[in-house]
């Protein structure tokens, strides 16, 4: 348990917007170098915050409508959702420590 789940247009509403817990969605693409760099940190956080934070990954090539809806430009873009609303955004290959600070802020306020 704790591995990131795949976010799609089909499950976005149920698994992200209507989730009981805060959700981190990693908007990524297969040929994005920084997406590759940040992926291990995202996976580790999914395990470390299991039960407190849901972590999903959305391929922007496969689900462009969602990416467009949230105004995604540069990737990776890590969006935090709580109670159906976006509450925080991190863009780029930030370190795990920086990402964890954002996670803690969102989880603490949950």
């Amino acid at each position, binding site marked *: 348990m704790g591995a990131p789940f795949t976010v799609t247009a089909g499950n976005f509403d149920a698994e992200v917007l209507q989730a009981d817990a805060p959700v981190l969605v990693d908007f990524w*693409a297969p040929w994005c170098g*920084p997406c590759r760099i940040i992926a291990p940190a995202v996976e580790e956080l999914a395990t470390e915050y299991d039960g407190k934070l849901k972590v999903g990954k959305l391929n922007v090539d496969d689900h462009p409508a969602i990416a467009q809806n949230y105004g995604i430009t540069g990737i990776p873009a890590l969006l935090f959702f709580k109670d159906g609303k976006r509450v925080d955004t991190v863009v*780029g290959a930030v370190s795990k420590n920086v990402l964890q600070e954002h996670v803690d802020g969102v989880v603490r306020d949950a």
Partner: protein
Amino acid sequence: MEREEALQMDKPSEKNITKMQKYAEKFAEKSGSYLHPDRSVTETVVEGLARHIEEVGVPLCPCNFYPDKPAEAKLRRWRCACDEMQMYKYCHCLLFVNKEGIPITEHLPEDHEGRQIYGLVKDPHADKGRAMRHKIGATEEAAHD
């Protein structure tokens, strides 16, 4: 496995991969930057550029989301080497970086997200690159119009 499956499914031709790899090596030298020390990062980005050549005819940066790729392909700004690289020597895709694999942020405006992510990263060869630096003011003015 999701990424590996996607890469295998749409792998670009060796011809275009080689073309973009050579371009990246030459541009790094010309601009006074380096390719990423983790070769898999460079390979990923180079394949993304090659794939965009096959998809839309030009090497669009693979580290952006484009709502309309064909329309974006008609513009100059995100064709590698992109306007940000040509003006500020900043590559958010991590193709052109310093020796340690960190993007150069020295020339960016202080409020640019690159500065917020990576802090101030010095240009190791400030005498090279930034062929479009003279356009910085013009671009900012256009953005405010």
